[in-house]
């Protein structure tokens, strides 16, 4: 198959988005649903939360003079053909979900991302710890049993020096 477009050496503008995880995930899902090559609108920079969009351009209660920040943020979205992505949002389920989400046209391991299970390693170790030590029940039960056995087997004068046989 011929390469239809040159492979970019740097990230195109708007490749990295930031914002709330829920918004990023929604945007990722929206892109995966697009037909590759079809013209679509893409946001750039910070993803706006739904509530912000509703308040966009509205007075902030401090008067026109003091307006600043996201209310005045210009809409930087642009129109471009949708990319061809693997149907997978990296970071949605990996290690129980991560704060950074990625989309890719090639296998994520080729991008240097580790192949992670859906459960975090720390969740596994926590399960082990809680199973063995939950409420310290098991340690105390074992200690109780050991104390009972040791009490029977250890005689107080048992290893007193100079006393052989009794």
């Amino acid at each position, binding site marked *: 198959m011929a390469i239809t477009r040159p492979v970019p050496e740097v990230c195109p503008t708007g490749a990295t988005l930031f914002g709330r995880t829920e918004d990023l995930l929604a945007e990722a899902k929206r892109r995966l649903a697009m037909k590759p090559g079809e013209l679509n609108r893409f946001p750039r920079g910070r993803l706006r939360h739904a509530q912000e969009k509703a308040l966009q351009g509205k007075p902030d209660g401090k008067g026109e003079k003091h307006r600043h920040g996201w209310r005045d943020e210009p809409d930087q979205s642009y129109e471009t053909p949708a990319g061809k992505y693997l149907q997978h949002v990296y970071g949605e389920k990996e*290690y129980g979900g991560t704060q950074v989400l990625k989309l890719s046209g090639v296998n994520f391991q080729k991008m240097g991302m580790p192949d992670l299970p859906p459960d975090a390693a720390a969740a596994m170790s926590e399960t082990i710890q809680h199973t063995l030590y939950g409420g310290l029940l098991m340690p105390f039960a074992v200690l109780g049993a050991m104390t009972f056995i040791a009490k029977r087997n250890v005689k107080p004068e048992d290893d007193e020096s100079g006393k052989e046989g009794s």
Partner: protein
Amino acid sequence: MANNNHAAPVPVGGNLVNAVTLICGVLIAIMVAVLLVRFLFGLGAVTALNDGYPWGIWVVVDVVIGSAFACGGFSVAMLVYIFNKGEYHPLVRPALLASLFGYTLAGAGVIFDLGRWWNVWHMFNPWSFNPNSVMFEVAVCITLYIIVMWIEFSPVVLEQFGKAEARRKVGRAMFFFIALGTVLPMMHQSSLGTLLVVLGVQIHPLWQTPIQPLLYLLTAITMGYAVVLFESCLTSSAYRRKIESHMLTPLAKIMLGFLVVYLVARVADLVVRGALSMAFVPSIEALMFWLEMASFVTPLILIGAESNRRNPARLFLAGVLLMLGGALLRLNGFLIGYETGDGFSYFPTLAEVLVTAGMFAIEVLGYIIITRRFPVLPRENAAVAH
């Protein structure tokens, strides 16, 4: 106790200055010099540690492997007092002594490795407790166990200084400390394995398994008996005493029992997880895996037969191999099979190796001084009568 006609422990006596103690002294002096630099100028001044490898040999060898080597006291105490095998009683004190040193030094070794060691007391501050943390559990258990072991060993000191009354009082509560002294090592030796579970995919599949705590516990017990074989043979040869084969031969059989359980668990786990194929990929990890497995399997061939278990040379070699196997399991998991990503590598500096050598020198020197001056080893003429 089933069997009380053992020879009472007495000090070995003799000169404390000889080639071995002098070498130990020199190694300890070098260690002190390196540690002085470390505490004045920080970890970076003497170690090869970096952001990818925050744990080097001071943690893996001095603490993780060192404390596993120090499981002799726990393994023998469990045999004598829990399984009521009184015939092994003369092994308790020398094993406990070695463990005492191993653990106390492991506890001290952690301090060397802590970047901000002056904050270590936070660990014992109830307002900072994090009961979900594996590291917290290890730290608290090891600290408690060191205290418990000194109490278990206190009769030896009290006997030597003729404090019969205090000796009697400690003796009455001893059963509780012995019980505690079997539970605590079970807890933290297994948790040292759980530490690897936390590291997730950074650990090579050959060593990353949820049954790691079980494997670490089984090998710690096996290594405990192996250390007793090693230490008993070495002591007999160094002090020109009769080898305690009447105890070591059956002890070796118990050790092999634990070893077989371990090997079954280890191989079954690799097969179930489908990780065994990784052992056939040409890599440093695979090579180390086979070295580790060979160290565990060879003792079965060496002393598998009852007649071979009467041979002190074979017992000694089997003991050394099992100590090596257990050490490799830990070294492989924590360092060789540990990969934090591109751009990070770790190989210990000479200074790090010298500190580790100094730590083991303290153990050897302490063992020599205490067995020569305190009642630890059974009286020799009576031992010959067996």
